[in-house]
Structure formats: structure tokens, C-alpha cells
């Protein structure tokens, strides 16, 4: 969900790259990381297996700078593509503001594309999101495969919503930025429609639907794709080599560890180095050096009560002895 933070002057949007395993989701992020200018793309963090397959998600913040006084950031996530990682895939999808479905153009992968798309629909439905209504695009990746399926056929099988589609060769960076830009504009457009013209008096957290729907201003900027058009941004010149998963970045992906520590290298290091999660926790509070004070914040008052009681007891004892002496 878009987070609008007026104190930090920030607008934060979440984009999720979805699709079957090995379709090029991580490659998209790696190439965006390479191509985006200095200071725009943040650190690319991967939580992956030893075989370099995404285990939980890849993450990269993209800071496009100040827009109308608000620092605008897109947080890019990928999901693990393998079928058996559905629970983690669903977690990553939570709160998404836009989705890129990265489809493999290889005809042999069509059933994987269809399975993944079906899975996406199911997971979106669980979050009460409708693929027809959310910012959603499809990227036909690996257009350089000699046997790549024609775009019309891919459209026919995968794009029943008639959403914008983009051709790409992610391994070469072709079509990658166009896809991201197209989806980002859709998210911004939606945000502007929903919120930018919202009248004063909105409830704070969470924001309600706008009181009145403003007249939707269709973007003057180049639309990502006319709905029925198969591919608005052609990327593929048809080179020969098939597209295996590249390693454009010297990768030391976090190995089977659920946490990745940011690299100390300033700003632009590619992958966080793995840091094993601690196996044991510290002792329980009871064994800690400073014992917890009874009553927490009221500890000071309790101390004074105790001192007064002790003084009273001592005074009473003294009085008793004095009286007995007499």
C-alpha cells in the first residue's frame, strides 16, 4: 500500500515482480540497479539459496527524488518463482501497489507462465485485489530466444485483461526500464486520482476512500500501452543466444539465511553480505544484569514508600525500647 508520510515528506510505493521460476525477475532488478543513476537505486538485497535462487525475496529501493515537495520512492521486490514457495510469495505480495508479471517467451515454459499467473490471481484475490483494477503490467521476457512465442500468441494466452505489455530481454537490459516506468506511472496516476485531489478532512491512519471521485485526468505523458496493443515498447531485436539467468553483478547472495546484512559499502553495493541469524537468544529478563524494577515506571515511588516504611519500623522499635527502659 502506498505510504504517504507528511512528517518525512515521503511517498513510498511497493512494486512486486511476479512470475515463474527463472523467468527473469531477479535479472530485472539487477539490470535496474545497474542502469539507474547514482543515488537513485539503493542497495540490492537478495535472500537466496546457495544455488542463487530467490528463497524469500529480492529487494531494492529506488529513490526518484523530490516530486512536488515529496521524496518519492519505489520499493522493488521479487517473489520466489518456484511453485513450492507459495507461502513466501504471498507474503511478499502483501501491500503491493503494483505488479509486474514477468513471463517467459519460451514456448516450453507456457504452462509455467499459466500456473504462475493463476497463482497470482489467487493470491491477489486473498488480499481483496482485482487484477483488472490494480496497476498491473506483463513483461514478455527473453524475446531474443530463437523459438520465442509470437507476442500475439502470448497476449492471447496470458493477457485476458488487456493490460499493458512490454517486450524485454532483461539479461541485456532491453525493455526493463520501460516496464518499470510504465507501471510506476500507473501507480502515480492512481495515487494522484485517489489522493491528490482529496478534500481536507481525511481520516488519518488508515486513509479512507476519497470523498468524491475526481474527474480522472488521463495522463498526457506517453501511455505505457494502449490496451489492445500487444507491445508498446519493442525491445527485441532478435539476437540468437538463449537467455540463461545472468550474473551481471558479482554476486555473493545471502545463502539460505533469512537475514541479510546491508553492506557497509556506501550506497551502491549490490548484495548484502550474509550474516547468520543467531541461534540462541539472550537469557530471559530475570537473569539480566539489571533486574527489572517492579512496576516499571512506578519504581521511584515504590522506593520512597519502602524507605518510609523502614523508618516507621525503626522508629517504632526505638520507641518500644525507650519505653521498656523506663
Amino acid at each position, binding site marked *: 500500500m502506498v*505510504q*504517504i*508520510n*507528511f512528517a*518525512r515528506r515521503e511517498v513510498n510505493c*511497493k512494486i512486486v515482480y511476479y512470475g515463474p521460476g527463472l523467468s527473469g525477475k531477479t535479472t530485472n532488478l539487477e539490470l535496474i540497479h545497474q542502469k539507474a*543513476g547514482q543515488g537513485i537505486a539503493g*542497495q540490492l538485497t537478495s535472500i537466496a539459496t546457495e544455488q542463487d535462487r530467490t528463497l*524469500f*525475496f529480492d*529487494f531494492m529501493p529506488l529513490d*526518484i527524488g523530490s*516530486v*512536488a*515537495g515529496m521524496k*518519492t*520512492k519505489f*520499493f522493488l521486490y521479487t517473489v520466489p518463482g518456484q511453485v513450492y514457495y507459495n507461502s513466501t510469495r504471498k*507474503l511478499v505480495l502483501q*501491500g503491493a501497489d503494483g505488479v509486474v508479471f514477468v513471463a517467459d517467451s519460451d514456448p516450453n515454459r507456457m504452462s509455467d507462465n499459466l500456473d504462475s499467473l493463476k497463482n497470482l490471481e489467487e493470491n491477489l484475490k486473498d*488480499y481483496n485485489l*482485482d487484477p483488472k*483494477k490494480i496497476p*498491473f503490467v506483463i513483461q514478455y521476457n527473453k524475446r531474443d530466444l530463437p523459438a520465442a512465442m509470437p507476442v500475439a500468441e502470448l497476449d492471447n494466452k496470458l493477457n485476458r485483461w488487456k*493490460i499493458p505489455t512490454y517486450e524485454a530481454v532483461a539479461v541485456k537490459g532491453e525493455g526493463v*526500464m*520501460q516496464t518499470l516506468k510504465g507501471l*510506476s506511472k*500507473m501507480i*502515480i*496516476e*492512481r495515487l*494522484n*486520482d485517489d489522493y*491528490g485531489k482529496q*478534500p*481536507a*478532512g481525511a*481520516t*488519518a*491512519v*488508515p*486513509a479512507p*476512500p476519497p470523498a468524491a*471521485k475526481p474527474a*480522472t485526468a488521463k*495522463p498526457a*505523458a*506517453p501511455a505505457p500501452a494502449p490496451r489492445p496493443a500487444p507491445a508498446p515498447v519493442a525491445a527485441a531485436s532478435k539476437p540468437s543466444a538463449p537467455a540463461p539467468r545472468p550474473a551481471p553483478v558479482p554476486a555473493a547472495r545471502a545463502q539460505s539465511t533469512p*537475514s541479510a546484512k546491508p553492506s557497509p559499502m556506501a550506497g551502491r553495493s549490490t548484495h*548484502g553480505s550474509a550474516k547468520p541469524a*543467531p541461534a*540462541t537468544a*539472550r537469557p*530471559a*529478563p530475570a537473569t539480566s544484569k*539489571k*533486574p527489572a524494577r517492579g512496576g*516499571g*515506571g512506578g519504581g521511584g515511588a515504590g522506593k520512597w514508600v519502602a524507605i518510609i516504611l523502614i523508618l516507621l519500623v525503626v522508629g517504632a522499635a526505638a520507641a518500644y525500647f525507650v519505653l521498656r527502659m523506663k
Partner: protein
Amino acid sequence: MAMGKSDEGMRSSRLVFYKEDIEKIDRVLLQFLKSANAKCALLVDKDGHLVTKSGEASTYDMDTISALVAGSFAATKQMAKLLGEEEFSIMFHQGKKDNIQLSLVGDRTILSIIFDDKTTLGMVRLYAGQVAMKLGTLFDEIAQRKSEAESISKDFGQAAKNKLDDVFGS
């Protein structure tokens, strides 16, 4: 694509934080840091966006930490469900120098406390419990109250699109 059409699932869940709310939250966090002697406190929403931070946080990559905190918490929630729990409300990771404790505040935010050996886990837990309650009450007040409206500029959409063209190429 029917842009601008409502989709309640997404629209109703949008998070907006106003300056005055964040100032109140910051005051609570600062008081907590003094009491618990912790290094830094981050408030992160469950989608991985940083809401606010307090203390010595300047050296950390906040965006990535926030995303990982939220991911970690979400994964743990799934684990809890498999064990028959609704969710584990506290998580703790111990390092050689720094430690991090995560605790749930309300339904949608996670309080992440980074601390070192100047304090103890017991102290942090004790005060974290109190601050979570204070923040929970504060969130309730914020949700109830009508805000006197800061709003993003009407030009935001077009300005953002122009910016995207600049950044990613036309």
C-alpha cells in the same frame, strides 16, 4: 486498464501519517530510548515502509532494514500459524555488539529497537511493552480523529511522471 477505478482492497488500506502524529510518536520513542538506554528505535509498517525513527540511526540503511524487518515478521507470523498461534508478537536477534528486538504495535506497525551492551534485554523488553501500549493508544486516537488535512499537491501526478521520464528516459 481502468485507471482511477476504485479497488477497495488497495484503497482502503492506504497509510497516511501526518506531521503532528509523527511528532507525538517521536516524543514517545525518545522517552523510551532514554528510559531503556537503547540506541535506536524504528517504527516500520507491515509492508516494510519506515514510519519514523529515533536515536542513533543515521548509519543504517533504513529502507532495507525496514523491508527485512517486515519480511522477517511476516515469515514468523506464518510460522506461528503453523504452530497454532495467531502470531508471535516479539522477536529478538542477538549479535556480537548490537541486538535487535521487534515487537508488534497495534495491527499494522512493528517497533524495532536496536541496542547494545549499555542496556539489557530485560530493560528493553520492560520498556518496550510500555511503549507499545502507549503507541497503540496513540494510533487509536489518530485513527479516530479527523485530520486537518495536509495533502499532496495536485501537481504531484504530472510532476512525478515527468520525473520518471527524466530518471528512466522518455
